[in-house]
């Protein structure tokens, strides 16, 4: 929708609405739980929601099970995500004339999915928040701070930049693993065991161990691991903490310095969420903060490293007069609340999750866990960190000369990619073509899932593009390989051989012909 107001804006709109609310005439605004940019006129916000709801209803005439997912217009793309049974997230992205705005709809939907799963991890479901407080005030204020904080990572300069075709060798919502030798793996394992048992009483803690921005070990389910990993790379790892260095992982983009300026201005300059209540409430932002002491786990500079090696979350300690413990997260798999306790030694980040229900005496309990951790594991931690540092190949560790690739294990939510610095050397046309190919493959995958959900999809596509690069996609046994080879020979057989070699060497032959 080429809304007139948009020209001057960031070029994206993000909306969260509840389709059960605001059915009465004059109450339509009540549907809207979140809208970015929040200074958009209500009339525009309503027309976005109106079109979205209208098309959801319309598409259900023909497709009752799967309503509207994508609207493609000449100048805008709209992507839809049904986050919860009645809660929809819609993102509208404007296409620029500079030819840079070509994206995969699934990559955009992944942004919505990621935002929602991170939100849920810290706040529980939106439905639960709405049940707790039917006026929607709580849900709105939580969404307002959370999504704005989340979006701050997408700022490049003063503009929000959504994942484009240049990001086609990346897979959001997956975990990047560090490959370690067998010997080191055993030591990491024993460290994880020690952490798991260093809790109070009989209740075991869960843990994630990261080296740099890569996962080394986890005792969480794949879904929870992916969420926690994403959060860690966004805010907890040494890279994330030192805001002046830009991370080499793709989860953080742009130069953080400018992001912070943009994001800190974000909340102050925009209207407060109360405006959504169109006059029915008159509480100020400050009062609201007190009432719900809104935790802002995605706020930048929230975390800092304390002297004892544990990370301290500033904002929780500042909430006026309230005793606030470590942040709490909600695990989908085990459906329990866990305290978040993070220890960092050089490049090693250890996230310990302590069941809330085990802690009757809050602060003291956590302090005890921390103490035990230091007593029992600090030696091991130092040792493991040294070993990992020694074996660490640097940010180009996973570069394979001649190849630019993305390898995804969909079952385990794991991916490995060529280092971003290397991907940047590819010609625009190569990335453009791979992006198109991935869009095609996305459709084939969803189609296969729909038609034969229990059957593994097998697909191989090799394209020689106009610029002579080979663009390849291979799917087999729940694994996906995407590849660009720019300096390969012109024959298809040569390209196939190259894929085969890569597969044998780096994928245990998963993509090789037997």
């Amino acid at each position, binding site marked *: 929708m080429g809304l007139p107001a948009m020209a001057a804006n960031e070029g994206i709109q993000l909306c969260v609405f509840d389709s059960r609310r605001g059915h009465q005439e004059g109450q339509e605004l009540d549907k809207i739980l979140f809208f970015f940019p929040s200074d958009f006129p209500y009339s525009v916000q309503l027309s976005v929601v109106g079109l979205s709801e209208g098309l959801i209803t319309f598409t259900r005439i*023909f497709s009752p099970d799967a309503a509207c997912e994508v609207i493609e217009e000449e100048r805008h793309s709209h992507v839809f995500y049904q986050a919860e049974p009645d809660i929809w997230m819609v993102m509208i992205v404007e296409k620029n004339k500079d030819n840079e705005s070509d994206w995969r709809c699934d990559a955009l939907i992944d942004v919505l999915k990621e935002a929602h799963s991170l939100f849920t991890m810290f706040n529980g479901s939106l439905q639960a928040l709405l049940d707790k407080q039917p006026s929607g005030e709580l849900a709105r204020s939580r969404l307002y701070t959370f999504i704005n904080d989340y979006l701050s990572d997408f700022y490049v300069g003063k503009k929000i930049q959504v994942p484009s075709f240049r990001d086609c060798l990346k897979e959001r919502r997956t975990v990047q693993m560090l490959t370690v030798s067998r010997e080191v793996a055993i030591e990491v394992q024993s460290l994880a065991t020690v952490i798991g048992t260093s809790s109070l009483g009989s209740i075991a803690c869960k843990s994630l161990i990261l080296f740099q921005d890569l996962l080394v070990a986890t005792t969480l389910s794949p879904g929870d691991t992916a969420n926690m990993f994403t959060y860690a790379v966004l805010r907890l790892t040494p890279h994330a903490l030192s805001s002046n260095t830009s991370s080499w992982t793709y989860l953080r983009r742009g130069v953080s310095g400018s992001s912070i300026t943009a994001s800190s201005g974000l909340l102050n300059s925009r209207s407060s969420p109360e405006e959504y209540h169109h006059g029915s409430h008159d509480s100020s932002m400050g009062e609201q903060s007190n009432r719900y002491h809104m935790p802002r786990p995605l706020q930048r500079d929230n975390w800092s490293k304390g002297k004892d090696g544990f990370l301290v979350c500033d904002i929780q300690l500042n909430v006026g007069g309230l005793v606030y413990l470590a942040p709490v997260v909600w695990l989908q798999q085990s459906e329990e609340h866990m305290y978040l306790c993070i220890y960092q030694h050089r490049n090693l980040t250890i996230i310990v999750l302590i069941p809330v229900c085990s802690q009757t005496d809050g602060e003291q309990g956590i302090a005890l866990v921390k103490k035990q951790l230091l007593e029992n594991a600090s030696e091991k931690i130092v040792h493991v960190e040294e070993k990992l540092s020694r074996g660490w190949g640097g940010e180009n560790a996973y570069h394979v000369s001649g190849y630019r690739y993305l390898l995804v294990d969909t079952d385990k939510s794991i991916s490995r990619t060529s280092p971003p610095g290397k991907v940047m050397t590819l010609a625009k046309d190569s990335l453009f073509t791979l992006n198109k190919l991935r869009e095609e493959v996305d459709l084939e995958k969803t189609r296969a899932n729909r038609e034969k959900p229990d059957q593994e999809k097998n697909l191989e596509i090799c394209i020689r593009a106009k610029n002579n690069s080979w663009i390849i996609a291979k799917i087999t046994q729940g694994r996906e390989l995407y590849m660009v080879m720019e300096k390969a020979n012109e024959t298809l057989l040569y390209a196939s051989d190259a894929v085969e070699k890569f597969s044998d060497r780096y994928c245990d032959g998963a993509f090789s012909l037997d």
Partner: protein
Amino acid sequence: MDSDDSVTDPNPHHPDPSLDAEPATVEQMGSLTLGEAGDAAGAERPVGNGFLPADFYAAAGEIEVVEEGSPVSGDLAGPSSLGGSGACRERSGRGDALPSPSSSGYAGERGSSGGSSEIEEADDRETMLDDWSRGKRHPDEDDGSVSWRKRKKHFFILSNSGKPIYSRYGDEHKLAGFSATLQAIISFVENSGDRLKFIRAGKHQVVFLVKVPIYLVCISCTEEPYEALKRQLELIYGQMLLILTKSVNRCFEKNPKYDMTPLLRGTDAVFSSLIHAFSWNPATFLNAYTCLPLSYSTRQAASAILQDVADSGVLFALLMCKNKVVSLVGTQKASLHPDDMLLLSNFIMSSESFRTSESFSPICLPRYNPMVFLYAYVHFLDVDTYLTLLTTSSDSFYHLKDCRIRVETVLVKSNVLSEVQRSMLDGGLRVEDLPLDSSLRSRSLTTPELSSSQTGIGGPSGLWHFMYRSIYLDQYVSSEFSSPISSSSQQKRLFRAYQKLYASMHDNGTGTHKTQFRRDEDFVLLCWITQDFELYAAFDPLADKALAIKTCNRVCQWVRDVENEIFLFGASPFSW
């Protein structure tokens, strides 16, 4: 009626069901020709092409699109009733006693498949078994019917004020509410300064094409690529223009609420058969036409006589057999766009009345000039073969009739017609006949090679099918379907796979790709595009890459060796 169209004919030697009806048709033609003469004599008054009510002509007359005084005998059950042509219409109208060749031929099959009751599946079966050439299917349905909602592929034409103009399924008037919804969606976006391309919901895709004041919409769960569906809407729009010209827009300028449905009354069969072509005719996505294989001398003979008449004031002279071109000649520098040929042949073949008499009918070639009517003289020389003479002059009926008589005489004398019929029976290139190596190149396709076990259709080198498109000629050749893809559902699957491959090769901001290899559960597909040609080949899913590449090279060589027989040379390619 897949098997009726030779491109997709799984059993080329199976007697064409429509041949059964031939004697009756011939007889009918004779009587109608007589009737026609009387008709033409009395046709001094303004008449349309039989589709259009008087008010349209009143409007069109003002803008000097339709000239008066054209003797028209072709009538497709249009609402207008005009003096002398009445006798003719009674015979050729919808309630005609003339046995429909297609329906009689398929009566048995329809009975045998009566068990199918699932609506989702219905589409596939119905396209084969139902007599789509008869027009509207399921007119009793509307958007409230479950069966209507479950149709696999809907097409709608509506005006930008929301008035329904055409719907593939259901009665247009009952769909007024639905049509208004579509209009509201499209206009909402238009009003914001943008334009809707498509909406995706699960396996459904809603594709929009805006040609103000006309909106076209496709709602489909066939999972065809957006580009393919959009092109289908373009063709539907083109088909509408072929019948009405773009001057229909004037009606909406005068009255935005104008009800256009009467203008298209009686043309359901034309649209149904075009929509059916979207699932079997490669011309719908390849931007090319195909020729009937004929020896070079035979085609030369046909071209010579067409050239002869073209020099006497005919814009285009076109001899076709079903959807395949025998020969085509145009005057001056004019050339026929492949889309215009597709739409014209679809129009002629799906309109029963063209078969029953010689006709002179105003038609518009949208790619040639969407604003004006040309006049088409159409005469079927046998059941499948028809001569079309296009002119700009509305009063050249008798001249064109004379031309046709000359052409027909020559074609009969020089055995071209019998060669055409023989070629129809023989079919086109067969993958089994692919020559083994270059030493055998000189052999022509009329003396097929003995197929060897190595070149067979199974095994690691198993070539199942191919399509070759010559870029300069705007022509393609498609092989006959081999045994691994003999069923119509397999053929449709291959057709859709090609369609996807075509879109994937062409749809990108960086220019056409050079090669593509694609392997899935159904096929190995190879596409190879150069400056001169595009090759699309389908292999056994277990095919070996190296062998498949070799086979493709052999196919290209083979096509070049027999190009004089499978392509028409000398027709100026479309070039503006």
